């Protein structure tokens, strides 16, 4: 039985680099090996052997005749048909998509670098089936919320886990419940916005537990797996430049009325014989803006050119629009890559600058990314991935209703006088340093009453913040055997987030200064052994065994002055007149894990995979802190068994099942007392409002998914369908309980939430050739149902601001409930004898969750020209608009003017025939649209101001369908042919016109943008003083050297 030794090297056709891990088999036997890191192999073969088979994921397999050779070098090419794409799966393991029993969708990094979002999460909008992004498109540096396949946890985190090069990174969002509910505060955004699009090579979205089970608890909501660029596969030195500049302007402003100015009645009051405006009224039920000369607010300020003058009382229709400025965003990236035989590296620097549309708001971000890898010996490889991100911002706008937070837009949308000339407000300070506002108390008291000059607020009571962050990993990998590799990683992500805020002396709220500093850190130590082998031609086996130790720490130091500042505008905690408010908080959690997975392939047609993981979490009671969960999936590429066809190119069915256990936040097991402010020298502690639970168990989610992946006409048409079902039980809920129990909430294990849905991805190339048109469509519907809550409980209150947000048994998550106009059996609105609507309480309006979401991408290329257009859409979902509620209450919006059914101005007085009680033909007022209890039509006109003020008690009237379709992104550009600059050192040059959030193509809600998220938590569906949405347009230039 003679043998001979055959050796050789396998390289890639595309870039000539060595291919490690290639399977080399003697055809017809089980004898084989795997190439090493240099792509080299050595194999003893029987002398009878004639052929070697080379196979590698993503490459076309090759059979090579041996002949008499003892050295066989092979160049492998990528699988041209792309039918068997390689995707990045859990633990960063690259797998053939064909072999997966679950859905994974990828986004190439190049899709993110032309039209750039300052918060990269927004770039996912409309691109991935079943992934919903919610943001607030007017908020500089604001939050983007992301949900994959619906809401799984009643009150826990429903955001996916972000993993960059294997390192889990924090996507924390410290916005308070009130900020999320649009009741004030500033939106500082979610921490994943630190990910720099220029450094992303690829994003892989792992949607379901089957795909993510190996990541454990935190990945129950899916994983956004990001691979950053490296210097690998690029010989020599390369330099690339990417520069974008865009200009931002406000859009989707409310439709204001321009007939009546400030006040509560249509006649002017007089003061010393002169007509005056009602300066104290922050509403517009006043006199007609007919040019009558009156003493306007500024006429009382001695430094005003119109001091003491009567000036015409006229409309300024663009006063709100004129307040906003043109924003500028510029982003510049330079990246240098290089590699030698044993070492590769990439160094990238990005600078982002933004000037917001709100006066005095700016943001900047510096990102440095370094990636390096070196082969120290044949078997030992070490590497590092490190990212530094430095953010700073000034003047982030306040959000929501709270005037203390400085949201000047609340005034414009809800409490304003329509005649105000914005130019007159630009001088916001008197020579004596006092606030110079339109909302003065009276002619002889020029102090601000409710609303300060908006320029005063933005220029004097601004915030500043910064976040300095480092994340990445170092690793060492050792090839123990050709088929067995062990790797150890040390990973970290830590940052210091600092927020300083101030209220200037002389403002309406008491002057103050506060500092809020958080230190967040996560360290992971991970070990992974990977074993891959083939048994003969037709069986493959992969086994992974891993262990991870995780430690999370969080510290917060918050200080706020109390009782004012000792020296005006001395912004320092030391200036606190009374003892400052202090929060000193620290938190630590540890999770240890062991896990393993095995996958088996049969005849390259059937693939089976299974995994098992056990976690130990410090956040659960000792008796319940260890939990084990399995997953299994199967993939069947049935087209391999069919005769090859020019029509049907590929077909696969897949099925996956998984269970995931989830722990909770620390300190929910043992009860403690809540510190309160001292009373003089007496300490004060309160019985806590949350009742902890000594018997907590881990949450559990069980899911399955089924999928079909088909391609036709050599891949020109692709259709991918997925159905999934997920049931989450034993949820750890801070259950809102009746306060009469002595507690506001109690930590319990309860509930069952079901999500099921369909995801459809359709791709096609309708036109191919010199002009090519690619189209991609994704569409997803998720059905969510709260199947069960705690015993005897059918509702959990999530948030309340007039309207309540609830998890209610038998309904989808997040139903809005509140008061409404009562309706009769036929659905007609009921009106009482006074002409006012009849009120009904506790009406369920519907869920904030969308019925379906999706997006359409179109790519056109012709010679050097290219164009990408992304449209995304949402159907259904409710939200409540406080802006519209008060915008009509205070007579600002267009709805509050116009003629009534009699053809008279609705704001004219109601005139009634004293004898018949019927309205006179010249009567003003509004006839509420409805019937009396007895079914007869309402005939009683009510005063317009009373009508709109009363209408606020029926909040359903201000609750809208959040459906929209938006032109989310567009770029149109040209790649200059090399022939144009042969003598220059450039390798490629391209220039694009780029636009983001260009137009709301369709929406149902008036006056506001239905995208209203102010956080990435579970509180959604509240709009209140929304910052106007912003349209962004500009240019992108890419150059490589």
């Amino acid at each position, binding site marked *: 039985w003679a043998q001979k030794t055959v050796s050789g090297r396998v390289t890639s056709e595309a870039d000539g680099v060595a291919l490690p891990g290639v399977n080399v088999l003697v055809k017809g036997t089980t004898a084989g090996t795997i190439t090493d890191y240099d792509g080299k192999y050595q194999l003893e073969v029987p002398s009878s052997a004639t052929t070697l088979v080379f196979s590698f994921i993503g490459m076309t397999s090759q059979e090579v005749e041996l002949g008499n050779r003892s050295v066989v070098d092979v160049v492998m090419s990528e699988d041209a048909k792309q039918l068997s794409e390689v995707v990045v799966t859990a633990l960063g393991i690259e797998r053939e998509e064909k072999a997966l029993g679950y859905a994974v969708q990828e986004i190439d990094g190049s899709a993110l670098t032309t039209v750039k979002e300052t918060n990269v999460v927004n770039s996912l909008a409309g691109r991935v089936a079943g992934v919903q992004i919610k943001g607030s498109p007017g908020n500089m540096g604001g939050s983007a919320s992301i949900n994959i396949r619906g809401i799984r946890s009643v009150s826990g985190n429903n955001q996916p886990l972000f993993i960059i090069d294997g390192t889990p990174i924090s996507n924390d969002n410290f916005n308070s419940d009130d900020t999320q509910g649009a009741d004030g505060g500033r939106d500082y955004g979610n921490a994943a916005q630190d990910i720099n699009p220029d450094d992303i090579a690829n994003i892989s979205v792992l949607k379901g537990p089957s795909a993510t089970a190996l990541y454990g608890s935190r990945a129950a909501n899916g994983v956004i797996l990001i691979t950053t660029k490296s210097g690998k596969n690029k010989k020599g030195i390369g330099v690339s430049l990417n520069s974008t500049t865009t200009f931002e302007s406000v859009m989707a402003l409310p439709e204001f009325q321009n007939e009546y100015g400030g006040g509560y009645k249509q006649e002017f009051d007089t003061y010393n014989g002169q007509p005056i405006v009602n300066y104290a009224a922050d509403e517009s039920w006043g006199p007609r803006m007919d040019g009558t000369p009156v003493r306007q607010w500024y006429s009382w300020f001695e430094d005003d050119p119109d001091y003491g003058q009567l000036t015409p009382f006229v409309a300024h229709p663009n006063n709100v629009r004129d307040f906003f400025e043109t924003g500028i965003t510029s982003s510049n990236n330079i990246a240098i890559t290089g590699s030698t035989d044993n070492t590769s590296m990439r160094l990238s620097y990005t600078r982002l600058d933004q000037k917001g549309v709100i006066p005095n708001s700016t943001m900047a971000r510096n990102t440095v990314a370094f990636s390096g890898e070196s082969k120290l010996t044949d078997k030992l490889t070490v590497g590092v991935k490190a990212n530094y991100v430095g953010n700073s911002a000034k003047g982030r706008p306040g959000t929501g209703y709270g005037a203390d937070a400085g949201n000047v837009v609340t005034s414009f949308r809800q409490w304003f006088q329509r005649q105000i000339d914005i130019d007159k407000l630009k001088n916001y300070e008197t020579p004596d340093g006092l606030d110079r506002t339109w909302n003065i108390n009276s002619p002889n008291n020029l102090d601000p009453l409710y609303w300060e000059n908006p320029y005063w607020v933005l220029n004097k009571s601004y915030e500043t913040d910064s976040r300095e962050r480092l994340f990445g990993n170092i690793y060492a990998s050792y090839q123990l055997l050709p088929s067995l590799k062990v790797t150890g990683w040390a990973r970290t992500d830590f940052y210091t987030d600092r927020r300083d805020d101030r209220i200037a002396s002389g403002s309406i709220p008491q002057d103050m200064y506060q500092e809020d500093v958080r230190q967040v850190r996560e360290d992971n130590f991970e070990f992974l052994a990977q074993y891959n082998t083939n048994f003969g031609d037709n069986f493959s086996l992969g086994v992974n065994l891993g262990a991870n130790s995780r430690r999370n720490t969080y510290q917060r130091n918050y200080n706020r002055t109390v009782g004012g500042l000792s020296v005006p505008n001395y912004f320092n905690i030391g200036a606190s007149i009374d003892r400052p408010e202090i929060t000193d908080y620290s938190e630590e959690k540890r999770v240890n894990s062991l896990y393993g997975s095995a996958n088996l392939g049969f005849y390259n047609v059937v693939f089976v995979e299974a995994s098992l993981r056990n976690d*130990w979490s410090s956040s659960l009671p000792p008796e319940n802190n260890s939990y084990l969960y399995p997953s299994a999936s199967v993939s069947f590429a049935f087209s391999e068994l069919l005769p090859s066809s020019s029509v049907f190119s590929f077909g696969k069915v897949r099925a996956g099942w998984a269970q995931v256990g989830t722990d909770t936040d620390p300190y929910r097991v043992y009860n403690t007392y809540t510190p309160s402010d001292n009373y003089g020298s007496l300490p004060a502690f*309160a019985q806590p409002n949350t009742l902890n639970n000594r018997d907590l168990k881990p949450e559990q989610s069980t899911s399955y998914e089924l999928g079909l992946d088909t391609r036709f006409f050599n891949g020109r048409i692709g259709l991918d369908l997925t159905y999934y079902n997920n049931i989450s039980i034993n949820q750890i809920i801070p*259950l*809102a309980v009746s306060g*009469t129990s002595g507690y506001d909430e109690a930590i319990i294990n309860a509930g069952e939430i079901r999500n099921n849905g369909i995801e459809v991805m359709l791709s096609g190339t309708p036109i191919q050739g010199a002009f090519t048109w690619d189209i991609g469509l994704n569409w997803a519907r998720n059905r969510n149902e709260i199947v069960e809550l705690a015993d005897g409980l059918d509702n959990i209150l999530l948030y309340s601001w007039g309207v309540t947000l609830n998890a209610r048994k038998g309904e989808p998550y997040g139903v809005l409930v509140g008061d409404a106009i009562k309706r009769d059996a036929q659905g007609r609105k009921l009106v009482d004898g006074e002409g006012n609507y009849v009120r009904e309480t506790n009406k369920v309006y519907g869920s904030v969750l969308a019925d379906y979401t999706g997006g359409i991408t179109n790519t056109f290329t012709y010679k050097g020209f290219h164009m990408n257009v992304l449209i995304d859409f949402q159907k259904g979902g409710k939200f409540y608009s406080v802006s519209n509620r008060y915008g009509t209450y205070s007579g600002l919006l267009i709805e509050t003017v116009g003629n009534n059914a009699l053809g008279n101005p609705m704001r004219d007085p109601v005139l009634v025939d004293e004898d018949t009680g019927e309205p006179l033909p010249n009567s003003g007022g509004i006839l509420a649209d409805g019937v009396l209890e007895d079914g007869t039509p309402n005939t009683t006109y009510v005063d317009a101001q009373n009508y709109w003020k009363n209408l606020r008690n029926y909040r359903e009237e201000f609750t809208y369908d959040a459906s929209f379709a938006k032109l989310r992104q567009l770029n149109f550009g040209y790649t200059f042919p090399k022939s144009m600059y042969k003598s220059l050192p450039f390798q490629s040059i391209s220039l694009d016109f780029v636009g983001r959030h260009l137009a709301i193509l369709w929406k149902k809600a008036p006056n506001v943008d239905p995208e209203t998220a102010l956080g990435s938590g579970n509180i959604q569906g509240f709009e209140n003083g929304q910052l106007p949405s912003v349209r962004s347009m500009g240019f992108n230039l890419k150059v490589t050297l």
Partner: protein
Amino acid sequence: CDQGFEELNIDPNKPSEVPTSYLFTQGERALVTQVFDPLTVAEYAIHYPQYFSQTQYADITRYSTVESSFYPFYTGGLADMQEIIRLNTTEETMDAAAASGANVNQVAVARILKVWGFHNVTDMWGDIPYSQALLGREAFSPVYDPQSEIYPALIQELTEAAAQIDENQPGVVGDIIYGGDMAMWKLFANSLKLRLGMRMSEVAPDMAKTAVTEALSAGVFTSNDDNAMYTYLSAQPNVNPYYNHFLTRTDFAVTNTMVDMLKAMDDPRLAIYADPIGVDVPRDANEFPVANPEYVGMIYGETDAVSGSIRNQEVSFPGLATRAATAKSPILVYSEVLFNQAEAAARGWTGGDAEALYEAAIRASMEQWNTLAAEVGSPYQVTAAEIDAYIASGDVAYDAANFEKSIGTQKWLALYMQGFEGWSEWRRLDYPDLKPAPAAPAGMGIPRRRGYTETENSLNKANYDAAIARMGGNGLSTRMWWDVE
């Protein structure tokens, strides 16, 4: 794999054990906040009986909202008191708790303060969770007890708690109201029992008489020195809540109802109760005295079109004695005790001289306000001669034929700043003759309660529905059990 995890999960930010004195301090402050701070339901209590009027946005005074939450009472001071009782009666914690006063004394004071809290809750909402309240995990959805059962239970609690007090053992520590003086707490318990007993005069006279006479024989306040006052401090966050309010806003002026009546009767308390007109930010109105001061009350419950045209400097804001940083809040005072004694005599339940007690009550009120004014540096003082003249005047003279009117009117004047009590006593006695807000919805009278929060519909539906059905509606016009038509 989980070594050290249990210790790691003990919250380092909050203590697992604290002296019960810390809970007393917090609990008293929390209850007082609900009864006196206009950021809470106290805002309704001070406006409905027409002590204060809103200068702009007169929505409360036009009765335009219905629901308010009582949760802050329960999760705040009441829960703290419940915890004090638990710690002082549970074997494992009793000894440690005794560092803050004798177990029996702590339990007694906590019970008394619970009664004070609960009676304010029931007086605002009617039927409320009581017997199953504050039990945590044992009852997340407590039943609503009828007010007719709560009142006897509260009186029973006061009787037992007063009896439990042992003045020979250490008093409670951390007590802002009486500094742990157990003799005072006994007097307070009896005086509160007198108040609750009298509250039932119309609906359950026999029960009322028993409670009133028991309380009087057990011993009640005998001078203004006994008054239960809550003292605020000069530094944040322990300042008087109206002081805080007027730092940034000017929502509350004294009503025309109040000012007109004080002027009509030439009541010398006017200068203490209200500021003269001419200033529009009350915090600036501390220049005393003003020559020929003029006082004008703010019209009550008018439309924005009407009240919006009235400027701040045209109306009187509350006086310094009610809104200085350290202006005290009266929890239960001697004059109220005397008014109750006068009424008991008038009803023939005791042998006292109703007229003399009535006059003594007015005198006690004047003296009490003199003290409050002096304490905050207000120069206005009612002189003895003014008191005598006032009592002698025809408008004030005791009318034995209509003691409800005499006592009701004078008690309402004396209970200024005690919104809950002033409102309750007006509802019980129907004096003085207050008129509903002119701009209130047609046919709507002065509110006789607040509606339950809609949150209860979500969290405790069956019991909430049952209570509404039993009381006859969740609206503002539904009457208390003791508020007989």
